[in-house]
């Protein structure tokens, strides 16, 4: 993925090379960010790729309008997040995704050592989907950024304290939802 930004230099003959170089540099800072944000919402790699590409294309088209270039990452995250949510809402993919996850878990049940991990992953996904959107965004970004509160605050444009309290609430709700499965299988 790091080669992605490098590959752009020869992809298009730009009439404003400095602007394009800056876009490449910004994109090289966060090559997988849009994809991971989309994956956190969609849980489907193919759909996440589509959304990430669309987000990056929009960023490319509108890069000249972005006044504060330091906020490129936050801009890309918001775009990818919105596009992923739109995709779910428009096509009603939530039900299909859950159904697919259920089928996956049934298939995984055939292999004993994979069952617990699959089940837990499914439960985490379900609990994460049940969170309010503002908590879900913070929790997803925190997972991507290694639970760095200040980084999440930069990406969301929220104060550090707000991010911290939302992150706590999200983790608390998830812990309440998943406690039973951890108790049932502590050695997972």
């Amino acid at each position, binding site marked *: 993925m790091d080669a992605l930004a490098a590959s752009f230099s020869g992809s298009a003959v730009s009439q404003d090379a400095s*602007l394009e170089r800056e876009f490449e540099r910004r994109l090289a800072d966060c090559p997988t960010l849009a994809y*991971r944000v989309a994956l956190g919402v969609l849980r489907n790699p193919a759909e996440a790729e589509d959304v990430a*590409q669309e987000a990056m294309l929009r960023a490319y088209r509108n890069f000249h309008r972005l006044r504060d270039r330091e906020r490129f990452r936050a801009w890309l995250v918001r775009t990818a997040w919105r596009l992923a949510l739109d995709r779910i809402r428009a096509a009603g993919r939530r039900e299909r995704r859950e159904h697919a996850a259920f089928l996956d878990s049934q298939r995984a049940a055939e292999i004993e050592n994979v069952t617990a991990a699959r089940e837990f992953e499914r439960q985490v996904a379900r609990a994460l989907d049940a969170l309010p959107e503002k908590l879900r965004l913070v929790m997803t970004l925190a997972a991507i950024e290694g639970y760095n509160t200040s980084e999440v605050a930069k990406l969301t444009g929220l104060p550090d304290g707000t991010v911290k309290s939302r992150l706590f609430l999200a983790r608390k709700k998830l812990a309440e939802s998943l406690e039973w499965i951890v108790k049932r299988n502590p050695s997972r």
Partner: protein
Amino acid sequence: MDCQKKSEQMTARINDFALGELSPKRELESLAHVAECEACREAYDHAKAVGSEVDLGVEALVAGEPSAQFMTRLRARIAAEPAPKRWSWDAWRIWEQASRQPLSYAVGAVVLAALLIAVITGLPRRRVSTPTVTEAVQTTSPSPNAATAFLKATTIPDHSRKEVVSRAVPSSRIRREPEVLVPKGELLAVVQFYEAVHSRPVDSEQLYAAQQEPQKPLELKPIEITPLEPLETPVADSDKGPSLF
């Protein structure tokens, strides 16, 4: 901290502590308590473990790399896109096109300017003008010609007239609608009074004496009541109106 009596509160606090929500001061207190109390330490360890499992589970959901085709597809799509542009370059492009087709752009500019002027001039605007002395008098007089002629003919000194003008025509106080200051037919009397006051000094003693002069009391005449004459013909019953009984 008595965790035996307040077990629910303590559990909640331990959970918050494990998930990293407590303030530094309370964190220290909780840490000290957890070190002493075995039951709370177990609760803390359990909450911490659940929190870690949750974090790992969410991390697993967002972990992953896009496929190799992702880069190829994105490269192709970006190559098909026009290059990002600065706005100044767009402005220069418009100017360049205008220089190639000067006539059409000039006609467009003229039409736009005409529309703009029409819109600006068509807007309702409040007209404020400074009226002259004559206009001021006209607004207060029912017959303007007679009033102006009268004002010209009066013997009001120049300095007094200037004063009248300056008092009568404050541009900020003039209203557009006519305002009647002098009752109809009394303009002559007002001007005469004005002239009399300004032409000779007023004797204050005279005025005071006139005010102090005792007025005659009102005379009340007695009212004479003439008795009515009796009717010659009796009134019929039907003419008396409806009977109540």
